[in-house]
C-alpha cells in the first residue's frame, strides 16, 4: 500500500500545482502623497522597480505559477497594463498564469478580496500584501509548510534599522506600533499576535495557552510581514464567514483554535477539516497513516518531532507508576522516530514510524493529540544579506529603498546610460537610465529614477527621486521623496519632505517635514 502512495506522491506534476498565490494590492493610504491614481501602491517604484515586480519575481523563484492579483477598480487598468505591456508577463514567465482581478467598492478589506476570488482557489494558497518585499528564500518557507503541514504559516521579520539615525528610529515608533508576538519556544508555533494599541499597561496571556504551550517566547522586535501560506480549507472558511480582515480577525482566530477546543467547535471547523481531505490529494496521501482521520501530520520537522518525543517521554514519566510496561517500549520507539530523516521525502517510511509509535503508545494519544488539528507556524526571517520589509509608510519606504540598494552590485546600481559631469560623486545609490548629473553634485544612499536631470552642486542624501524629475542647481535634498515629473528649483533645501508627482517646488524654498502638492 505504501508503495503506491509513494508513486503518486512524488510525481513532479503534483508539485507544480501545489500552491496558488494571491497578491492583495491595497490602496496604500499611508503612503500619501507618493501614490495616486496614476501610480497605485502596487506600482510604486522601489529602487526603480515597481513593488509588484518583486513579488512576482519572488513567486516565480518559488515556482508558484498561478498568481491572482486582486486590486481595486481604479487601479486595475494601470496594473493590468504594467503586467502585460511593461513587464510582458507571458513572455517573462512563460509557465505562469498571472491575472489581475478587480474588486468593486472599497475593497480595502483584505478578507473581502479573498472572498472575491474564493472559487478560483483550488489548492493551498499563499497570500501576500503587495507592500511586502523580501528575498527570504521562498522554498524555505514552503518547505516548512510542506514538512509540517500546518494550517497556516506566517512570515515575520525584524524591522529595518535606520542607519544609526536616532531621529528616524524614533519616528518609526510612531508609525508602526509594537506587536507582541507569542511563539512557542520549541515548535515555533504562532500563539498570539497582539497589536500594541490593543493593550494598555499589561499584556494578558491566557493560561490555557500556557497549559498547552508551556514555554512561550514573546517578541517585540518582530513584525508581521503579511505573507501567509494557508491550507486550502481556510478559503472555504473565509468564504462562509464574515471575517473582515486577515490580520485582525483571521489570524487571531486561527491561533486561538490551537488551544481552545471550545472555539474550534463553535466555529464548526471540523467540517472544513474533513472536507479538505477530499480536495487535497497531495496531503491526503500523507494522512492515510493517521488513525483518527483528523488532520494529523505524518511527517514533521525536526523541531516538531523533538517536541513530540519530549511529550511522550514526559507522558511516560507522568504515568510512570501505572504503565511501566510501556516505558521501555515507547522509549525505544521514540528514539527510532528520532533518528528518522526529518522531512518526509518518502511517505512510506514516515508512515511506518508513526504506526510504530501509535501502537507503542496507544494510551498516550490523548496527551499528544490535543493540539494537532490546527497548527499555526511562525517563520522568522533573520540573517545576513536577507531582507524583508513592508512598504507601508513613507519612512519605511525610504528605508526599504536603501535596503534594496545595498543588495545590488555596483554595475546594477548605476545604469550605463547615466551622464555624469565632472566632479560628481555617487555612493550607495541607484541611478536609472539616461539620467544626467551635473558638476560637483553628490548623491549618497539614494535612488534616482530614469530620465532625471540633476543640476550642479546638488546634494542628495537618503532620498528617492522617481522618473523624469528635474533638480536644479544647488538644491539640497535629505530624506526626501520627489515623485515623477516634479521639479525642485534652484537653491531649495528640503529635509524629510515629500513632493507629489508633477509638482514644482519654487526657488529657495526651505522645507522641513513638509508635503508639496500640485
Amino acid at each position, binding site marked *: 500500500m505504501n508503495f503506491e502512495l509513494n508513486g503518486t506522491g512524488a510525481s513532479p506534476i503534483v508539485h507544480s500545482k501545489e500552491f496558488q498565490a494571491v497578491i492583495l494590492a491595497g490602496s496604500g493610504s499611508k503612503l500619501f502623497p507618493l501614490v495616486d491614481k496614476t501610480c497605485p501602491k502596487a506600482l510604486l517604484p522601489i529602487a526603480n522597480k515597481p513593488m509588484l515586480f518583486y513579488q512576482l519575481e519572488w513567486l516565480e523563484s518559488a515556482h508558484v505559477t498561478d498568481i491572482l492579483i486582486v486590486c481595486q477598480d481604479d487601479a486595475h487598468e494601470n496594473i493590468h497594463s504594467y503586467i502585460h505591456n511593461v513587464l510582458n508577463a507571458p513572455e517573462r514567465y512563460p509557465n505562469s498564469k498571472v491575472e489581475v482581478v478587480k474588486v468593486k467598492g472599497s475593497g480595502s478589506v483584505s478578507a473581502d478580496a479573498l472572498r472575491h476570488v474564493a472559487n478560483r482557489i483550488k489548492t493551498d494558497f499563499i497570500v501576500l500584501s503587495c507592500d511586502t518585499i523580501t528575498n527570504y528564500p521562498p522554498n524555505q518557507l514552503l518547505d516548512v509548510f510542506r514538512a509540517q503541514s500546518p494550517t497556516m504559516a506566517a512570515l515575520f521579520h525584524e524591522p529595518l534599522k535606520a542607519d544609526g539615525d536616532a531621529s528616524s528610529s524614533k519616528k518609526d515608533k510612531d508609525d508602526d506600533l*509594537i506587536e*507582541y508576538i*507569542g511563539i512557542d*519556544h520549541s515548535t515555533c508555533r504562532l500563539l498570539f499576535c497582539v497589536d500594541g494599541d490593543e*493593550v*494598555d*499597561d*499589561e*499584556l*494578558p*496571556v*491566557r*493560561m*490555557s495557552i*500556557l*497549559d498547552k504551550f*508551556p*514555554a*512561550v*517566547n*514573546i*517578541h*517585540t*522586535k518582530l513584525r508581521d510581514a503579511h505573507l501567509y501560506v494557508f491550507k486550502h480549507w481556510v478559503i472555504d472558511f473565509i468564504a462562509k464567514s464574515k471575517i473582515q480582515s486577515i490580520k485582525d480577525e483571521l489570524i487571531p482566530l486561527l491561533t486561538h483554535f490551537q488551544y*481552545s*477546543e*471550545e*472555539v474550534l467547535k*463553535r466555529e464548526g471547523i471540523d467540517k472544513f477539516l474533513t472536507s479538505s481531505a477530499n480536495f487535497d490529494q497531495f496531503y491526503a496521501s500523507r494522512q492515510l497513516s493517521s488513525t483518527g482521520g483528523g488532520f494529523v501530520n505524518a511527517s514533521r520537522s525536526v523541531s516538531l518531532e523533538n517536541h513530540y518525543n*519530549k*511529550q511522550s517521554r*514526559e*507522558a511516560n*514519566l*507522568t504515568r*510512570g*507508576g*501505572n504503565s*511501566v*510496561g510501556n*516505558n*521501555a517500549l515507547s522509549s525505544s520507539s521514540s528514539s527510532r522516530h528520532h533518528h528518522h530523516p526529518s522531512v518526509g521525502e518518502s511517505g512510506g517510511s514516515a508512515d511506518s514510524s508513526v504506526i510504530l509509535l501509535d501502537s507503542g503508545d496507544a494510551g498516550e494519544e490523548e496527551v499528544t493529540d490535543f493540539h494537532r488539528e490546527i497548527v499555526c507556524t511562525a517563520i522568522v526571517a533573520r540573517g545576513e544579506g536577507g531582507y524583508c520589509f513592508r512598504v507601508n509608510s513613507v519612512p519605511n519606504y525610504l528605508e526599504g529603498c536603501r535596503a534594496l540598494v545595498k543588495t545590488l552590485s555596483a554595475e546594477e546600481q548605476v545604469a550605463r546610460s547615466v551622464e555624469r559631469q565632472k566632479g560628481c560623486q555617487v555612493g550607495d545609490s541607484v541611478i536609472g537610465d539616461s539620467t544626467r548629473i551635473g558638476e560637483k553634485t553628490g548623491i549618497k544612499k539614494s535612488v534616482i529614477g530614469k530620465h532625471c536631470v540633476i543640476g550642479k552642486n546638488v546634494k542628495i542624501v537618503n532620498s528617492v527621486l522617481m522618473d523624469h524629475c528635474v533638480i536644479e542647481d544647488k538644491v539640497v535634498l535629505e530624506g526626501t521623496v520627489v515623485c515623477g515629473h516634479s521639479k525642485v528649483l534652484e537653491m531649495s533645501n528640503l529635509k524629510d519632505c515629500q513632493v507629489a508627482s508633477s509638482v514644482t517646488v519654487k526657488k529657495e524654498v526651505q522645507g522641513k517635514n513638509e508635503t508639496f502638492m500640485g
Partner: protein
Amino acid sequence: MASRSKEKEKMQVEEVLAAVVVADSFNKRFMPLTGSKPRCLLPLANVPLIEYTLEFLATANVEEVFVVCCAHSDQIISYIKSSRWANSTLPKVVTVVSQQLNSTGDALRDLDAKQLLKSDFILVSGDVVSNMDLGKALGEHRARRLVDKNAIMTMVVKTASPTHRTRSKGEEGIYVLDAATHECVQYRSLFPKKQKLKLDLEFFNSHSELQVRNDLIDCQIDICSVDVPALFTENFDYQEIRKHFVRGILESDILGKQIHCHIISDTYAARVRSTQMYDSISKDVMARWTYPMVPDTNIQGSALSTYKYFNPYIYKENNVILSFTTKLVRHVVVGAETEIGEKSVVSNSIIGRNCKIGKNVRINGSYIWDNVEIGDNCVIERSILANDVKVKAGVTIEKGSILSFGVKVGPNFKVQEFSRLILENTSTRRSSFDSNSDIDDQVSAPAYSPLDVGAEGAGYVWQDDDSDAEDTEEDARPILEVCAMARDITLHDMDDGIDEETDDEDDMSNVDPLEKSRGELISTIERAFEENHTIDNVALELNTVKFAENLEFHDIRFTAVLTILNLVSNAATLTTTMTRWGQLLQRFVTDEEEQLDLLEILEAHCAEVETHAKLYGKILQCFYEMDICDEEVILQWSKQTTTSIHASAKAFITWLEEAEEESESDSD
C-alpha cells in the same frame, strides 16, 4: 597592573565555596512522620534524604557545608556525627543549631547575624535530590556577578511538561524570563488559578524578547551572593525565598537587584516538598533518572548498603529472602534481611530492611520503611508505612495513607484512603510553631479506637489542629491535601479545572449581561453572609455595585430576596434569618410602588421554590412585622393578585383585614 589583576583573580579562586543546607522544612506536609523525625532524615529509597543533598554538594566541589537545623536538631547532629560526613574535609560539614526558626528567611537572617558566609554560596534545603552539574550554573552566576554586582541570585530550574509528576502539585510557578539572558522579570505562583497572566508592558522596554515558561520545575537550588542574607535582614518580613524574597526583589524598583534562572534540561534536580513529590522522586530514583544517585551505587559506602541491580528496575540488598512464588514486578527496592512470603506481589514500591511480609500480599506504589511487619493477605496501595509499623493479616490500606512510627493496624481492617495514623498522641514537637498545646492535655490518652486501627491495633488518627492558623500555604492547601499520593486524582482534577476555565472564558460572551451583573450582586450579598457584615455596609456595597453595573433598585430587591430566602428552609430559620437580614430589604423599599414591586418578586420567587411557597404567609407576616411592607400595601397587593400562592396566605390577610378594621374602629 597585570600582576594586580592576577592577584585579584587568585583571590577569587581562593574564595571558599560554601553551601547552606536548611535542614528544616518549616511545614507539616509530612506530619505525622516529621513529628518524630526531621524530614531530611526520612529515608528515600532507604537512604536518608540529607545523604542525597550532601552527596550532590560534594560532587559539586563545595568546600564547606553549613547544615542549619532547628527542629530535631539533636537527631540531625547525631546523624551527621555518625555518618561518613563527620570526618570529611571536602566538604567540611558544619552543623549550625538555631532555635526559634520559622522559615528559610529566619535561617538566613540567623546566618547573617553569625557572619558565617563570606562569599557566594549555594542555598538548598536538606531534601534536594540532584545530579546536575552545578559548576556550569556557578560559572554563569560568577560571570554575571563580574559584570554586574546586582545579579544577586541564580535559581536552578528544570524543564518538564506542565503536568510532569516531579512538579510539585499546587506549587507550580510561572517564570517570565528574558529570552537571551534568562533574567527573571516576574515569578508568579500558578495558584490561586487565574485565567490570564498579566505582563506589565514595562518589561518590554528593557527586554525585547520575553519568555513565559510554565514548564519549569523549581529545584530549590539557589546560588546566592552574600547580599542575599543581608537583604533578608533588611527586610525582616521576608519568610519564604520564593514567595517573599524573589517577588520582593523583582517588584522592587529601588533595590535594582536582578535574579537569574539557570535552566537545566538533561540532568535531574528536585526537592521532596510533599508526599506527592516523595512519591515522584522515589520513582525517579528507581527509574535511574538520578544516576549516579541510585540504590546500586550505594552512595553511603559499601559497608552500609549492598544493593544490586536486576532487570527490570529491581534493586535488592544481600540476604533478602523471597519465596519462589514472590513476584517483584518492576521498580522495586528491597532492603537487607527482608522476607517476602509466597504469592506476594510487589510493584513500584520500596521496602526497607528487616521487614517481614506475609503471604499473598499486594503492595503497590508504597513506601515501607525498616522493621515493618505485614501479615498475610494484606493489600497496600500507594501509602507510606514508617519504621516498626505492624500490619496484621487481612488489612487493606487505601491510597494516600501514612502510618507513622510503630503504628499497628488490623487484623481484617480497612484503613480509609488518605488516613494519617500516629502511635502516640502526645505533642511531639517538630518545630516550635506547629506544636499545638491542646494535644498536651491528652497525655493520658484514651484507649485506641478499633474504628481507627482495628481490633488489635495501636494508634490514633492524626489531626491537623491548626489548619486555619497557617497562612503560608493556604492557597495551595486543598490541592496539596488531595494530591497527597494519589496522583491520578490530582491530574484528573487539574484537567477539569482547565476545561472549566476555557468554558468560562468563552461563556462569558454568551451570558446575558443582566444575569452577570446580578451575579455580581448575589456574590456581594453572599459574601456579606459569610463574613457577617453589618446591614449598613452591605447596603453601601450593593449601591456601589448597582452604580458600577448600571442596575436598578429592582435588581437589588430581586437578588436580595433570592439570596436571603436561600438561607431559609423552614419556619425557624425564617425568623432567625429575617431578624438578621430582613433590615436589608427594608433599605431598598421606601415608597408604595417599591413595596409592591417587592411583593411581586416574592410571589414569583415562591411560585418557583416549593419550600418557600409553604412559607409564603409567614414571610409576608415577617415583612409586615418588620415594617418592610405596610399593611395597606399588602392588602392592595392581595387585591391585585389572584395566584394560588397568594391564596395560601389567606389566613394572614384576613387577620390583617380584621386588624385594620379593629384599629379603624378603635380610632373611631
